[in-house]
């Protein structure tokens, strides 16, 4: 059998499972909203690189973990228009509305965030904190602190 045929059959099966699962599966819970109980900022992506976060209890905020020094904050290398994607998870995973929105200080000269995608763009070096809030009425949110600095000469 040709490679392309195998690939088409595999893709077709994957699509069919997802489509049949999404369109024809009985909903387990009727007219009951499962609310988000926790929003976790699990990490960030910069380009193709992924960084994990840790929760700083004293500041009640998630920070990017320095892989060389665990439990310490990683300072990102600032470049003009440094773009960071905030990765998140909601608990429980079966929450009815799993979407979130992102916010930051709109007047900040350091960085701005896209409300829907969670893309943070640094305009200048500095430290900025962003909030990830669930879109249901649970009012659950988390904060993540990002720091970008030009490397010392």
């Amino acid at each position: 059998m040709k490679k392309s045929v195998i690939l088409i059959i595999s893709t077709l099966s994957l699509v069919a499972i997802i489509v049949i699962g999404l369109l024809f599966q009985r909903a387990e819970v009727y007219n009951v909203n499962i609310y988000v109980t926790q929003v976790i900022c699990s990490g960030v992506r910069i380009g193709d690189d992924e960084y994990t976060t840790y929760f700083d209890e004293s500041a009640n905020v998630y920070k990017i973990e320095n892989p060389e020094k665990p439990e310490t904050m990683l300072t990102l290398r600032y470049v003009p228009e440094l773009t960071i994607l905030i990765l998140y998870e909601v608990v429980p995973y079966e929450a009815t509305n799993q979407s979130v929105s992102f916010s930051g200080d709109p007047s900040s000269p350091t960085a701005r965030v896209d409300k829907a995608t969670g893309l943070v763009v640094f305009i200048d070096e500095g430290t900025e904190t962003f909030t990830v809030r669930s879109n249901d009425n649970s009012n659950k949110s988390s904060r993540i602190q990002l720091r970008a600095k030009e490397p010392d000469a």
Partner: protein
Amino acid sequence: MNDIKTLVIMQLKDKLDFGFIKDKGQTIRKVVFFVLRFIIVAAIAYALFFVSSFLRIFHNSPFIPTSIMTMMMSIILVISTLACTTELIKSLYMAEDNQVLVTYPISANRIFLSKIIVFYLYEIFKNFTFTLPIFIAYGIISPVNWFFFIWVFLSFFFVSMIPVVFGVVLSLPGFFLSRFFARYRFLKILVFIAILSGFVYLLVRLILLIPSEINVLNYWGPIKALLSDVTTFFQTYFKAVYYVVIMVVGKYDATMKYTYLNYEVWFVFLSLIGILAALFMSAYFLARFLFIKMTSVSFEYEKRFKFKVFLNHRLPPFISFMVKELRLLFRTGQFTYNFIATYISIPLFILLINQIFASMDLYPNGQFAVQSFNILIIMLPLLASNSMIATMYSKEGRTAYQKRTKPVVIIFPLLAKLIPNIVLSIISLAISLYIFNAHMNYVLSNIILLSLALIFIQVGHILYCALLDLMNPQNEQYATAGEQINNPNETKATIFAFITSFLIALITLGFLLEEQFMPNQSFNLAFLKILLIGIVFLGVAVYMFIEKIKAYYYDRVS
């Protein structure tokens, strides 16, 4: 240099049919078909990327990560390298045209080089028809640099070298391994059965691990996370392939744009050229000697045959041809690798699909969709694998002409060639339907009707594929170039397989919806209708098969 060019063109003509160049109309048709195929593959890939982006499957983000391309490229490169290795073993050291080529007034080194160039050009052709359109689709949906749309075409000339060079390198140990197993056939069969059994056992155990309850809606979050993890796995552990992808699309930088203004891109590019050149040169100097040795000896497979004396039993003509075909199949090994792989994988795939669907609690319309999808998934690989049948008579090469001289009814040797596949595919179909029924619990009459219908369609399609080969024989190409030729009959048979499978699945869905059939219902008219379609399909195929045989072998059409 001109002599290499002549040799390459000569050998390439055997692999790719360039007969259309002489005819302007055919050339335009071929070019349009090629462009259309390119656009269709790119459109399908774009649609998949768009859905992934819309559903934010990867990292809860609308962006399609480079790791997706790394995953795809890894799979393609592994498959291509394996295919190249096995084909190069045959083409470099065992091809029949070697003995003719060495008689030409040209050095053996150049013949060797020309053979590798032929493979390289064939790999470029394959990449330009499949891998490249996917990359173009990725470029359209991702924030790539404009330079990508020029560079991607150039870079694929280098990417296409990877499987060929690795194939040349691996062909050396591969050849000695194949020679070892050719000498100890019992060991070869034993190793093959052991690996196959172990693989099937592991796969079944893995499939049965699927939980009894999956709700795609409820588990959508973890499923997305799993998909992201799988792609990240490829980016982490297939680092070399990731760098090749970076070389093609550019480095996804800190501003979330692909750029070529990065040292990694060009470092990878130069390293790739260096590594491929070093590997090729070392393989060239080693493999060349083996090639020259293999072409200079009278025949390479010196085997210590142990002759056993058998009393010659006179058998009926059809049985004699059957015995001959079975011997040929087991002798070449082609049977084991092509057909058994397909016939074993279909029931396994049906088990996997049904295990997943069984864990979903579906509405009646979902049940209908699952039933017809099962039929599609059983029929699609089964019928697509029949495309090999469309090459069977041609693969006999010049010995096929002997059929005309044998004083027997011609249907005997022609049908004898198809019987092993018909029997094995029916067994595979029966096992697949048994697994399907174990999940569906049809009453006996319905599953028997459905089984008969699908068997008739399968046998009809086999006859149709055989017919394609009879009507447009490729014996000369196989006689000179061996296995790797672009056989138009194979393509036609595959397209027909897709159309037939989709039509049967859609018709079944229509009948099931019309009858509002649920699996536990008693006898249902829907299956009788499907059976009737199967009977008509087989009837037409048998009629056409017999009529064409009359036309081709007896020069008369009734």
